[in-house]
């Protein structure tokens, strides 16, 4: 897939038409893409091929919305846009915001003010990411978010800023001379799964090549096996991905790897089941977990996590930080032998604690 996506059209709110972010983006936009100014009160654009530049009226920075009863990893989300240009079959945006345009917030000065104010109160290392509601880098050649984020966190070494992507779009990121605390992360899955269920995204090779380039530039990378799906031959397929990661980057360049199995709210299937007919991915043997989400049943998840722990240890070494996304203390204990306490995972991932939390031992 081409790593330089372009929108079909651009709509700009009148109030941000002259904002530096907007002017900067327009200067990089191919000339053949129609640009419209939206007046107050007129309808907002629809469809994710349209780029909508507007003002964020609310907060840019929030604690990552975790799930009740699971081990929190202390993550914050810094939202610079909403909606994703890709079409992953399992993505919640596809179901809850199918017609939303690719929205970018132009008032980045407000975002920076909010961020810096929050950072003053952080007495410890904090992990923050921009990839919760959008792909962090898919449109970076237009948004230059990586340059903005680089300058934002360069003077804040205690902030580990993560840009998460399924693209191979790292040109602007590399050109921004990113600080060491700007971590580039890739969501990964077996290539056959990506081809079928992650429409429009970069191939695994493209993602790993991009990760390799970032790591070669002396920066840290991260990987997210999320969602892990139990496709036929999943062990061999995921082992090949793990091997691919450590072919592309040295283990010491890996800031962290997360693993999370496919999960969704109970109502998801009731609401969308008929539309997903024929895609067995969503109709595997999911059972309700204590937080109300449907997940693979316990012994299978445990098997998956033990497999990943073993595979990553074997191919990357035991120093590669590994954590589970949205899993309970019991699962950490069962799969990794970690009896985690409040804050342990957070401290572990930010490098503030090792010792008893070293995985796999």
């Amino acid at each position, binding site marked *: 897939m081409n790593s330089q996506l372009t929108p079909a059209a651009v709509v700009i709110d009148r109030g941000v038409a002259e904002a530096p972010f907007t002017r900067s983006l327009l200067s990089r936009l191919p000339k053949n893409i129609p640009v419209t100014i939206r007046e107050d009160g007129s309808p907002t654009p629809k469809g994710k091929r349209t780029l909508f530049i507007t003002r964020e009226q609310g907060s840019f920075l929030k604690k990552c919305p975790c799930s009740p009863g699971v081990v929190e990893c202390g993550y914050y989300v810094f939202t610079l846009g909403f909606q994703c240009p890709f079409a992953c079959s399992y993505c919640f945006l596809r179901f809850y915001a199918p017609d939303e345009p690719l929205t970018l917030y132009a008032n980045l000065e407000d975002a920076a003010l909010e961020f810096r104010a929050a950072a003053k109160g952080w007495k410890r290392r904090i992990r923050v990411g921009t990839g919760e509601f959008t792909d962090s880098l898919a449109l970076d050649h237009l948004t230059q978010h990586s340059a903005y984020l680089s300058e934002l966190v360069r003077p804040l070494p205690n902030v580990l800023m993560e840009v998460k992507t399924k693209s191979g779009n790292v040109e602007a990121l590399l050109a921004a001379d990113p600080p060491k605390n700007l971590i580039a992360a890739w969501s990964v899955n077996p290539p056959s799964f990506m081809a079928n269920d992650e429409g429009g995204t970069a191939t695994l090779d493209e993602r790993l090549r991009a990760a390799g380039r970032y790591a070669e530039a002396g920066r840290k990378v991260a990987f997210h096996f999320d969602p892990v799906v139990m496709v036929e031959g999943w062990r061999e397929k995921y082992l090949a991905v793990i091997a691919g990661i450590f072919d592309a980057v040295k283990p010491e360049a890996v800031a962290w790897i997360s693993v999370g199995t496919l999960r969704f709210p109970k109502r998801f299937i*009731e609401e969308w089941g008929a539309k997903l007919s024929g895609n067995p991915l*969503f109709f595997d043997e999911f*059972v309700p977990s204590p937080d109300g989400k449907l997940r693979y049943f316990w012994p299978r998840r445990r098997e998956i996590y033990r497999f990943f722990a073993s595979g990553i240890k074997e191919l990357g070494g035991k120093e590669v930080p590994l954590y589970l996304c949205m899993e309970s203390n019991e*699962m950490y204990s*069962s799969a990794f032998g970690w009896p985690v306490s409040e804050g342990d995972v957070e401290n572990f991932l930010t490098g503030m604690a090792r010792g008893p939390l070293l995985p796999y031992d």
Partner: protein
Amino acid sequence: MAEAVGEIEQVLRSALALGGARYSFTLKGPEERNSLNDSLQRQGQLTPLLVVEDEGVLTVAAGSGRLAALTFGGVENIWVRRFLGSRIELWDRLLEEQLTGGPLNTGEVALYIKKRLADTGEDVKEFPLELLERLGLPPRHSALDDPLWIGSLEPPELFRYALGELPAKITRILMKAKRDDALAILRATRGMRLGANKIAEVVKCALECAWRDGISVSELLDSEELRAFEGDGEGFRAALRKLRYPTVTSWDEHFSEDVRALKLPDGVTVSHSPGFEGGRLRLTFAFSSFEELGGDIGEVSEMLSTGAFAGLEKYLG
């Protein structure tokens, strides 16, 4: 509303037409019908029927069941009161009368709305919100989606709802499915006695199996030979659950076998959480004396120390 009703009068039974098909929105089971017959035979007619003139014919709007019982008892002269108001007022009154006997169930609400709309020609979007509240629905028009869907079903499924055989909780699930799939499940469960949670499980399992395999529910029932299922509702539920969750049910079955093989003392049970979530088992002692408890604990402790529980280790952690 009292002024919309005439004086009590007596008319010949032969002058009355049954209006149940047009006006009745509650269904009585055999027990209720028998009880009504007994009551009328013992005490006679205590309350007049509500009648309305439909194209010159005196039609029973409320009391069709009583008229049937009176007819059964050979009564010739029937006490009635004529309704003189508008059609909408009539339907308001019918609801008011019915609610004195308790709230309507989901199917009765559906029947009421269906018949009221057919009779008055009202636009459902203009139903007063207060009416929705009287029907036991949230005061918003979208709350009519479920009863309208149920009302679109034909008998016997429509009547199964009205008789309370089908719970409201399955409606939203069925509404999201293709209509043919929804009907196939409802037809397959005719005559089965299942509680609300179990029938909801049947519905979900059937739909999700069909969706997983990319086929219709009818095709699923045919391919799995479940269309003319000969067992009871519980057997049907178990068969569908096994289709939907083959590994989980296999673990459940093995677990039961492993626990049985332990030959635990009476009153001592081992159970697991749904889906084995958490990797923990629960050991329960039921006892009627501390002496019994002490004996059971001793026996279980002995079993643990001799490794008798080793077969359960795979369910832990």
